[in-house]
């Protein structure tokens, strides 16, 4: 299983990457939505993407919207992992096609529990 960790903070990518590797995933990273989109369009399609909201160039909501507009990326599960916790924004992300929503700060268990709910880990 392949995971894309999409966050503009290298420290956060490292933390999320570590959690995903420990959960059995191979991990690729990108630092903004545009770079993430290029990655999933040119490389293997990840099984899941952990998507930050607040990023330069292309934010997480724009990334989710772009991914959902492309049929060949349909099987990719999208999980927002963000500090954005306004109710109206969570509704927007889910309406745009995100499957799950985790608010920072999170615990490793919270991420793994969501992956389990999505059927991505046993």
């Amino acid at each position, binding site marked *: 299983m392949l995971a894309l960790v999409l966050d*503009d*903070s*290298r*420290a*956060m990518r*490292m*933390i999320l990457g*570590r959690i995903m590797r420990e959960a059995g995933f191979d991990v690729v990273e990108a630092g903004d939505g545009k770079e993430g989109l290029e990655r999933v369009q040119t490389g293997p399609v990840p099984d899941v993407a952990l998507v930050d909201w*607040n*990023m*330069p160039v292309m934010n997480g909501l724009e990334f989710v919207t772009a991914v959902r507009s492309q049929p060949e990326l349909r099987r990719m599960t999208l999980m927002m992992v*963000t*500090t*954005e*916790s*306004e*109710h*109206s*924004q969570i509704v927007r992300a889910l309406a745009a096609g995100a499957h799950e929503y985790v608010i*920072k*700060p*999170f*615990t490793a268990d919270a991420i793994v529990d969501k992956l389990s709910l999505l059927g991505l880990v046993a």
Partner: protein
Amino acid sequence: MTLANAVVTAEQITAIAQDVWSSFLQLDLLPVENVPIEGSSVTGCVHVSGEWGGSIFLQCPAGHAQVAAEAMFAADPGSLAAEEISDALGELTNMIGGNIKSLLPAPSTLSIPSVATGDTYTVRVPGAVVIEHVALACGAGDLHISIWKV
């Protein structure tokens, strides 16, 4: 108090910072006397715009920022570049700022964090005033959090 004037309390800010510091850095923050941070320090900032306008600042001694970054990167002491320490402090500011924003009048948006480092610098938000200031500390040093309202 009307919603537009509602502000977060020192207790709420403290709880958010304690949550971030304990879950990501395994460090326990406790309230301390508010004494200005001397010497080299790191300041992270995010701006909020929308129904509420203002900025959220985090300031800590350079040594505290280094320990925090080493915890996030799982790095050996002294092994990180200045850019990596700024990245970590920026993300900690983003997390604390985002959680504080959730207590402020909505809708509003949060900026990308910016980080300043050095011995002598002054950070100001033109036209804004400090409406809350919290001084905390853990084994790695002090952490000051301030809320500025435009």
